[in-house]
């Protein structure tokens, strides 16, 4: 089976002309199906940039990036947008839609599965909310949920679209240690059940043990891989 993510010789710059600054320097990384990889490193070292490149949110400037079998080097807007449907994303903030209930938020993810009927998608979103332990909070607005609950809704939303790759950018940053732990464990368990690869950026040393592999980044270079 092909790697979920295959990156080789990836360089990336921000800015133009004299202000041009290299943020990624010949990065190479592979993630196998079902693998949970943690990416750590100091702020501003390019972790998020790498994540957005893998998530097909940015255009690749130089190097080889292949995600879920789709080369991204020359992929246009449409191709990247289609690929994004197969990637789940969890953000630092929960990024839920403020005006929708928990259930509707998850359904926004489930709605990306075009081949299912409306009712099937609704059942799916309810099932996912139960899965993350929020079966009793279906009709609450994000405003009325605690931080951990919101992040769990975000996980349910990301997984509802049956992604093969889950990208998470500091999902525990806004949470206290116990909740953070719970959320990460949940994330890992569900990803395992789905055979979904996970790439998680984190600063949080308490959750490093969930990783199959640790990758460290400094000044735009990937340093060491701990097996």
């Amino acid at each position, binding site marked *: 089976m092909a790697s979920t993510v295959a990156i080789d010789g990836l360089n990336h710059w921000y800015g133009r002309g004299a202000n041009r600054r290299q943020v990624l320097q010949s990065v190479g990384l592979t993630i196998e199906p079902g693998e949970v990889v943690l990416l750590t490193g100091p702020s501003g070292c390019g972790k*998020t940039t790498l*994540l*957005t490149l893998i*998530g097909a*949110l*940015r255009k690749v400037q130089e190097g080889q990036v292949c995600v879920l079998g789709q080369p991204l080097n020359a992929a246009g807007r449409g191709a990247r*947008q*289609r*690929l*994004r*449907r*197969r*990637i789940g*994303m969890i*953000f*630092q903030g929960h*990024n839920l*839609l*403020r*005006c929708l209930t928990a259930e509707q938020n998850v359904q*926004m*993810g489930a709605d*990306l599965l075009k081949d299912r009927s409306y009712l099937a998608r609704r059942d799916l979103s309810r099932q996912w909310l139960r899965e993350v332990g929020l079966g009793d909070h279906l009709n609450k607005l994000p405003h009325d949920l605690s931080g951990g609950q919101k992040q769990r809704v975000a996980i349910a*939303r990301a997984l509802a*679209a049956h992604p093969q790759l889950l990208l998470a*950018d500091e999902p525990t940053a806004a949470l206290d240690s116990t909740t953070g732990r719970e959320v990460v464990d949940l994330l890992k368990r569900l990803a395992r059940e789905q055979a979904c690869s996970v790439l998680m950026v984190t600063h949080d040393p308490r959750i490093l043990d969930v990783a199959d592999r640790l990758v460290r980044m400094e000044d735009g270079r990937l340093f060491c891989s701990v097996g």
Partner: protein
Amino acid sequence: MLIRQPVRLFVALAGISFAGILMFMQLGFRDGLFDASVTVHRRFDADLVLISPRSTSSVRMAGFPKRRLIQAMADPQVEGITPVHWSLMLWRNPENLSTRSILGLGFDPEDPFFVNPELSQDSQKLSLKGRVLFDQLSRPEFGPVAEWFRQGRTVESEIGGNRVRVAGLVSLGTSFGADGNLLTSSETFLDLMPNKAPGSIELGLIRLKPTADPLAVQERLTALLPNDVRVLTKQGFIDFEQNYWRSSTSIGFIFTLGAAMGFVVGCVIVYQVLYTDVSDHLPEYATLMAMGYQLKTLVGVVVREGLILALVGYIPAYLAGQALYWFVRDATRLPVGMDLSRATTVFTMILVMCMLSAGLAMRRLVDADPAEIF
């Protein structure tokens, strides 16, 4: 998304309604005024009319020889004719003795004249000299004539220094040119307006046989009669009058401009509301894009928002429009009313307005860069 922000929703709806009301008002006034200018014209019992080519409108009707109307009888399809004298007169208010211009029509009391028979039934009372029928829908500045008359008083006044007595009331309605109307016999008319030549009339009404084709007869009469008269169909006569007000005065332009202003104001308000709304929710739109939603799905959301605003904003505008029309009818006695075509026009305008603003607000959406949200 607006539902969670009642204040902004209210502002948006108020803006749309306001724009709608403005448009209703301006268009209503315009159409009402144009309609009003032909209230009398519509009531004439005629298929064709003769006027002088020098006449420009109801306030400036020139005379032409009465002979021309009699000549028109030569056409086999013509069934009857009625000569009409038509002029503005100075009516003295019997209460405070001020004078004011009133539209006077003089005709032979024996001849049928108006489509509505109830208007003609009193005409016998005009066979006495110095008698007039007063339009009870005339503006109050002419004095409480109708009121006094109904109370059974003898209402007398002066026109151009001649004493006249009100013999009855009719209902015609005011227009641009005339704040009031009165009907009288040809004989009295000529007494009141001594400078008018007896052989000259201002309007000739021609009634055709029921089977006749007005356009064909119009053509024949135009060929037959010398060019000191114009032959018009009744509709042509109405158009002639409306055209004058539309093109020779600035009234139509002013009201159309007013409606356009309403449109622009509405556009600005809706654009502002939608733009801020999209801006506020930009991270959420970006999130949806990051999840793999297409730009056009998001555009659809904004379009729907605009559509809902248009629909919901139209309802109060429509109701307020109705109320205003009622108020205006009451105050000015102009025939301003809600008709289907204007209701549709304004709705279309509001819809276009909302869609236009939504379209402009969407340009903000393009800025939603999914990479920025991490």
